[in-house]
Structure formats: structure tokens, C-alpha cells
């Protein structure tokens, strides 16, 4: 992790977090790999079963906690592995897009798209373009109070998940 900061200073790499559904887009990214479709290395992918599993708050959290860009990708509408998960995702993500400017986060730093498991070349294009866009925007300005969930906070959420209590950190921060 230590080396990351130097890279940041050099401006070679920015922090881009990807949320990809397992069935289409994660597969599409795999297909791009198998086809050796070279891509920028900034993106780190978090695998979720369905784009419908992506809570818009995950994305907000990433942006608040220091991500320079967040890219979400799911199955093409009507082609969801879980029948309609991406319809839910589309509504939620579109809502988030409208909402981001209110928070002071540049909505340009967030994008969602649809890539199927066979579209390796398309995935390459999506990643390249989005990475270029984020590099164009430069490092995200630091958001006050955006310290992310620390270890303690996560443990509280975990406790909350298990015991039915809201996270005290959230209460403190008034979230």
C-alpha cells in the first residue's frame, strides 16, 4: 500500500473502484483478459452477484472515502441473470447520478454501464474511456469528514448486522 502514494504523486495512477455483477460484466472483464485486451491499470474491481446488489451508498462511500472515480457495470437491461436486478440498479444509479451534485461530488466521477460476458472488447473500451475521463478530472478533491469506515466502525456495522443495532458511528456523524 505504501507505494501507492508515490504513484499518486507521479500522477500515473488514480484510484478507480469498480462494482461489477458476477454474471455479465465480471465475465466481460474476464473475456477482455482472456483476449488480452490491454487496459489502464487504475481500476480495482469488487465483485457482486448482481448490479441490483449495489447500494448507491457503497458508491457514495467510495467517493467520499477517496476514490477518484467509481464505475458500475451490470448485465444489459432485459438480460439480467436474476431476471430484473439491473432494472432496480438502473433506477437506483440514475437517482444517485442526480443526487451526487447535491453532495458536492462531481457526478462525472461516477458512471454506470452495461457489458455482457461476451463483450470483452467493449469492456476494454469502457475502462479506457472512463480512466481517461478520470485522469482528465485529476485527483478528487478531499472531502471533509470523508474518513471512510474505519476498523471500529466496520465492527459496529457488523455488530449491527448481527444484533439489530444501528452503527453508532453513523449516529455520531448524523448519517
Amino acid at each position, binding site marked *: *500500500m505504501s507505494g*501507492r502514494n508515490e504513484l499518486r504523486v507521479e500522477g500515473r495512477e488514480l484510484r478507480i473502484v469498480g462494482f461489477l455483477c458476477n454474471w455479465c460484466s465480471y465475465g466481460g472483464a474476464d473475456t477482455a483478459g482472456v483476449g488480452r485486451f490491454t487496459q489502464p*491499470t487504475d481500476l480495482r474491481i469488487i465483485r457482486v452477484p448482481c448490479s441490483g*446488489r449495489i447500494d448507491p451508498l*457503497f458508491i457514495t462511500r467510495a467517493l467520499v472515502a477517496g476514490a477518484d472515480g467509481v464505475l458500475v457495470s451490470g448485465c444489459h437491461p432485459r438480460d439480467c*441473470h436474476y431476471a430484473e436486478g439491473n432494472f432496480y440498479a438502473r433506477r437506483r444509479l440514475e437517482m444517485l447520478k442526480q443526487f451526487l451534485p447535491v453532495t458536492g461530488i462531481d457526478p462525472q466521477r461516477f458512471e454506470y454501464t452495461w457489458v455482457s460476458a461476451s463483450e470483452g472488447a467493449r469492456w*476494454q473500451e469502457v475502462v479506457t474511456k472512463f480512466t481517461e475521463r478520470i485522469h482528465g478530472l485529476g485527483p478528487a478533491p478531499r472531502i471533509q469528514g470523508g474518513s*471512510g469506515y474505519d476498523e471500529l466502525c466496520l465492527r459496529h456495522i457488523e455488530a449491527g*448486522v448481527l444484533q*439489530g443495532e444501528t452503527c453508532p458511528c453513523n449516529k455520531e456523524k448524523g448519517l
Partner: protein
Amino acid sequence: MRIGVFVCHCGSNIAATVDCPSVAEAAKMFPDVAFATDTMYACSEPGQDSIINAVKEHHLDGVVVASCSPRMHEPTFRRAVERAGLNKYMLEMANIREHVSWIGKDKELNTRKASDLVHIAVEKLRRDTPLVANKFDVTKKVMVIGGGVAGIQAALDCADAGIEVVLVEREPSIGGKMSKIDKTFPTVDCSSCILGPKMVDIAQHPNITLYTMAEVEEVGGYVGNFDVKIRRKATYVNWDNCTGCGLCMEKCPSKKGFDRFNEGIATTTAINIPFPQAIPKKASINPESCIMLTKGKCGVCAKVCPTKCIDFEQKDTIVEDKVGAIIAATGYDLFDYTVYGQYGAGKYPDVVTSLQYERMMNASGPTSGHIKRPSDGKEPKNVVFIQCVGSRDKSVGRPYCSGFCCMYTAKQAILTKDHIPDSNSYVFYMDIRSPGKGYDEFTRRAQEQYEVQYIRGRVSMVFPQGDKLMVRGVDTLAGEQAEVEADLVVLAVGVESSVGASGLAEKLRISYDSYGFFMEAHPKLKPVETNTAGVYLAGCAQGPKDIPTSVGQGSAAAAKVAALFSKDMLESDPQVSKVDMARCVGCLKCVETCPFGAIKEIQDRGGNVKAEVIETVCQGCGICTVTCPQGAIQLQHFKDNQILAEVNALCQAEMSFE
């Protein structure tokens, strides 16, 4: 928690552009990591053994494998972890091959990225809990939807394997498109002679229950335990007593009904048996053309029927059944050729479809096997075939190749010569696509032995001239306009998904592509499985294919069902949603959003409304987890705190830098 990290070189696949030992070294810095190493091939037998040994030696209770995509080897490493004595869900993978080494060239950047991916896997694993699969019973009975050749084969193979089969067909007889075809390519076998015996086997097999004139109304439940409702449409004939004597057909005064079996080139009686070899050979009444049912008087059939089985009062009935697996073999329909106005289909009677032509050539067809022009009944001397009508044409929304039209066109051209030796056949084609055993030889034979004129080019228009038709097109090989005088024009109409396919897909909860063809689970390796457990595909429902491929898929789907039923109990995937009862406020938003009906309303002891997940029905998408305003319903293995921890792992370093 004690975590072990294994960084795979994958030969040079990963090691060439990622510094694997330093990724392993960096992993030792992550919380709870007790052991980290790099390994040549983690998936190989020695590789797996080294994981198992390390688990035992270092008392690990969770494993991170950094290697290829989890879509590739997650099951492999789950088994390895299980063999090591751990719960098999205490495994996470970091995809450092497809997502790192194969797409990035800079070794330094790749190494950092790989190390980040290992970090998020570790953070996720730290929050994993052991999961135990539920076991449940299997109903060893299969429903096959569609009685075409694919469905017939699937039903027979299942039945022969000792499995009870319910075969549902919406037409009055099974047989599908193959029963309409006169001969099959490339052997020029009589189609009904090879299909007929199989149809009879269906009727006679003790393990098969056949419902024709029936459609699937509703499908509930899950693999091993589907609850199905089948609508048996009213036939107005009591089939228990009908002997198929056909007396009613002779006497029926309404003779102008559309003959579906003969593709409308003939008319049929309101009460009819679709064709002589029909299975079951039972009469049914078309309520649209029946005088009794439309005008309220007639009843001739009821008077002549020797077994008194006509029942004008009959209503649709619903049959309920329980099956463990479903095979969807709903076949295809023909492209609406009238879209091509320039070919004059639907306008000029002597422009027919390939399937209509098939019926004309068939000995049991309306012309008794004599090819006649629909307009004047004369024998045609010049027959022009136009290929790719609704195939490989973006402008009509059908960019795909229907696959078998080249072959049946060659066959029809050959048969034309057989029927009318002094005839000439012309084929307008784009490319001749004849992959398959003996296929290319067959199209060559059509050209060389039967002197069929192949003209490479599209047809621009067909127009009448006298009592003939002029076909104007282009010959791209000669580079000039081609005009052929035709007595009869046959359109090689392309394949379309079956009418109502998308509706059925939604009932079965399987996906379909933008053309309505059902999606297989994997285009190469799971061609007859769907992403819904227990639902399989066969034949053209999945995409255009010829008879041998359809039959092969029918058998393949049957083999999948037999393998599924070889177990007495099935295991459900425990990566499902779970409700925290203390936190659930009973708003039931999750019940509304669940696409699978996997969440039900219950009451706790105090009478409070709560949500509960039916584990075997839940598919693990996690839509409910996002919907829940309380965070009370959590998808196991993809819990909120796990995903947030992953986000945190990727972003927190930045914070410390600031």
C-alpha cells in the same frame, strides 16, 4: 482469525507481468494474515495439496487464492479448502490473471494492483462466516415443454432412464415442424417415416403423460420441487372416447377453416385431426370456424360420432403437477415474410414459403405430393428459390443466420427435379452455408448432378408478367442484373423465436436474448443448461439449429435431468439472504422486490409481521439487501459490511496519505 494467502504464478501467465513473491510478501502485512506464499500452479494437484498442508500446519481458518477468475476455479478451491477440513465458504479469490496480468503491461503497476486485490479479498474473508448448505428432496419427474423432435427425444430419453415425464404441447398433435417436412437433408429420408415411430413411442411409453392442446400456465417453486399448472385447452371432444375414426371430419359442413398444419395452403374442417399420423389421433374443434360454436346451430359431428364424444360445453381445465426439472423445447416459428413487400409474398399466390412448399411436396399434403401452382393448379417448370428471407438482414431486425435454410433449399431444389424432371430450379443466395456431415457434398450435388442454377446475389423485386412471375436480382459473380422468369417462387423463410417464447421464459425465470431465444448458461460449455437451476433447453428454442443438433440437445438435456435425479437429496447454495428478525420491521419491501418470490411474510411469536427467506428458492442476487431500509436482510457472503470493507481497503490508504 488466521488467514493463508496463496499467490499463483500460473506458469508465466501471471508471473510474467506480476511479481508474485512480492505480492505474497505484501500480503503478510494485511490484518489476520498468518501465512502467505507464492505457488507455481495453485490449481494443480501439488498446488492444492500445498494449500491443504498449509491450512493444517499453520492452523489457518480461511484461505485467499490469488490466481485466475473465480468464475473459473472457485469451485476447485472450495473443494480444496473443504478437503483441508475448513468450511468451503471460507475462501476468497483475487483475480490477478484476467483482471491484472493479462491486461496490464507495467509490472510495477500490475504488482500493486494484484496486491490491492489480495487486500480486498483478505478484508472480505475476515468477515466471512461458515455457511452450511440445506438439503432437500427431489421430485423425480420432469416436464418437457414442446413436442417437436427435440422435446420428443428429451422425453423418450428421460422415460427410458426410468424418469416420469409430462410432455406438454400446445398444438393438437406432437411432431412439431419436423412432422410438416417432406424429406430431410442430406439423406433425403422421409421425415414422417423417421419421426413417426418416435411419436408412437411417446404415446405408448408407460412413463410418459402427454398433454396436447395444452400450455404451461404457471411455474412456481425451485429445482427439485417445481409446482406447475398446465392449461388444457378445450377441444370440444372427449378424448377419452374419441377413436380418431375421422367420420366427423367427413361430415363437417364448415370446410373453410385455416389449415395450420398445412401452413394455410389448404383449408380444413372445423372439427379435424391435423394429419393422418397425428399423435394423439384425436379430433378437436376449432371454435373460430365451428358453426355450432359461432352461430349456435349445426351439431352434425355430434350426430355422426359413433362414440358420442362431442362436447360443445367443454371448458379449459387446469392440471396441477409437481416436477423436479423442466426441459424447454418450444422450437421456432417462421419469420413474417410479408415484411419483404418487394417479394410479393401474400400478394401473389405463386410466391410461397419453404414450409408451404414442403407441404406441397408431401404425399399426405393437400396436393397429394404433386407440385402445383396455387393460382391455377398447373405444374411449374421454372422454380426460383430466394434464400435469406428474414436471415442475415439487419434491416428487418434479423442479423443472425437461420442455419439450415441453405440446406433445405438445396433439398427442395433436388426434390423439385425428382417430382418434375423437365423443370429448372434457380437459387438466389448470399453464401452457401453447409457445415455438417455430408452437407457440402449435398449442395454440390444439387448444383452438379441436378443442375440447379445458383445465382449469387439478392433479389430486388418479384413482379407478375402474364401468368408468370419475373424475379429480378443481381448476379454479383457475373456483375450484372439477373432476371429469371418463374412459375413459382419459394422463399427460404428464416427462423424466429417461437410465438410466446418470452412469456414462457418469464414464467420459467430464464433469460432470453433480444430475439426471444432462450439463453444457455454458457455458450460453449453449458449449451443446454440455463442459469435457473433445474431448467434445461433443447432445440430451436435456444437458437436456430437443424434436426440432428436438436435431437442431440434433446438427449443432452435428458442426460442433465438424469444426472440431477441420480441424487435423492439436493444441496442448496447457502449464499442466500438471511433476515435478522430483531431488526426486521415487517415493511415487506423485500417481498415486493424479490424476482423469485423467495421471501414470504410470517408472524413471530408476538404476532409481529416479519419477512422470511425461503432458502431453497433464493437465488442470491441481493436485490433485497439494498431494498431493506433497516439493513435487516443480508445476503450471506456479500453482506453490507463485507462490501464496505472492500471499499475501505481500496480507499483508506489514501486517507493515511492525506
